């Protein structure tokens, strides 16, 4: 079974700083997707960024980028120029042949 591990339960940075959230996963599959979701207090899961495993190039969405290391099974999220609105829970997730599997989450706080 696939597992996703987020080793940082909480992180806190100052506004405008850069922050990196860590994620590792375990799978025997070769073709899969990896995601970072943001969950504000409203509870809705918002897709931040997606990476397809067969693509070597790291995905980027504006201030959000990933460092995808397939051999190491590592998928970290970098948030540049952090903003107060980035404060939320962040979940790393794996989608293989079966269902979407989530990590335990990292609570990120951006301080003014």
């Amino acid at each position: 079974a696939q597992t996703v591990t987020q080793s940082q339960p909480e992180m806190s940075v100052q506004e405008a700083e850069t922050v990196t959230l860590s994620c590792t996963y375990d799978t025997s599959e070769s073709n899969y997707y990896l995601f970072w979701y943001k969950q504000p207090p409203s509870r809705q899961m918002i897709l931040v960024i997606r990476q397809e495993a067969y693509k070597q190039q790291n995905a980027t969405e504006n201030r959000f980028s990933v460092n995808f290391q397939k051999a190491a099974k590592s998928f970290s999220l970098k948030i540049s120029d952090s903003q107060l609105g980035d404060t939320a829970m962040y979940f790393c997730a794996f989608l293989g042949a079966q269902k979407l599997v989530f990590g335990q989450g990292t609570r990120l706080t951006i301080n003014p």
Partner: protein
Amino acid sequence: GAGVSQTPSNKVTEKGKYVELRCDPISGHTALYWYRQSLGQGPEFLIYFQGTGAADDSGLPNDRFFAVRPEGSVSTLKIQRTERGDSAVYLCASSLGTARNTGELFFGEGSRLTVL
């Protein structure tokens, strides 16, 4: 509607009662997923529908939990004889085709269930 809709938003019930939670997916989405998220945890998979049939119900914790999707659109998650440990946010997600093919799930805002 434009997004995945879940009702009720909040539900408080007493131990032992029966509860139904509803999910209305994005129109045309054939795949529908239910997840349970306990406080401070990541969502845990419960069940996945492809059309009207449950393609994977391996995440349902016990036989008190049941879900249906009779017409391939709206789904209802049913919990019998509720227990305090069932308190959680129940999230629904849908995708066009299988999420495996599209690589994208759309989530609702969840139903928060509190069992007293």
